[in-house]
């Protein structure tokens, strides 16, 4: 019989690797980048480049 810990770990991995979860994390990070920019964080533009390119790379990889 599968232990509850194994089942929980399996569910956790499934959730963490779900494509929609990844996209949601990127969306949240993008919104956070706006917040950082609004408060004048100097690294906000750098983070914006990273999020933009990550989203592009992830979006196009469904065709791999």
């Amino acid at each position, binding site marked *: 019989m599968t232990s509850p810990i194994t089942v929980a770990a399996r569910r956790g991995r499934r959730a963490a690797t779900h494509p929609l979860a990844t996209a949601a994390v990127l*969306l949240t990070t993008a919104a956070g980048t706006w917040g950082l*920019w609004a408060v004048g964080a100097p690294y906000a533009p750098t983070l914006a*480049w990273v999020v*933009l390119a990550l989203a592009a790379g992830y*979006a*196009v*990889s469904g065709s791999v």
Partner: protein
Amino acid sequence: MLLSSSVWRGNARWWFAGGELLGGIASGLVGVVAGSLLLRWWLPTAAHAWLIACALVAVAAHEFGIVRLPLPQNARQVPQWVIDEGGRFGALQFGFEMGTGARTFMTSGLPHLVLLAVLLIAAWPHALLAGLAFGAGRAWMALSRLWSPDPAGWDATLRRRDAAVRAVLVVAAGFVALLVA
């Protein structure tokens, strides 16, 4: 689907991911050099942001299925012989060619948006970082499928949720593209 090809055996996946990062960096470098030599010196600065905003609208319309844009792309897959070379270097080369984004089918317009931004406005460090992140994004999808407890189920989920994933990604990219521009 090459996500299930032999390139994933053993630790070849890490060589593949490394190749994706290197390919992305190469594209970032080429983009910033080409943009500096061919575009930036004659295009008015004010036009840069407008071009990126227009591209964002066009790409969003494409991703939401409102229009169907003929995306510029090298519409062919990495040749089988690259994969057949096997081992680390086959995986590395496969990853590099995927990471450049220049030798595959492009099902999304977001890479074109990033390329345009790199061509027009990216500073050197940002261009390199954008290339690295593009490769990381590509590698992440392949690796997350492998790490999934049920890769076949993961494929089915992606097919089922493709439209939603695209929509969320284009909104995220739109947010930050406006900051970049």
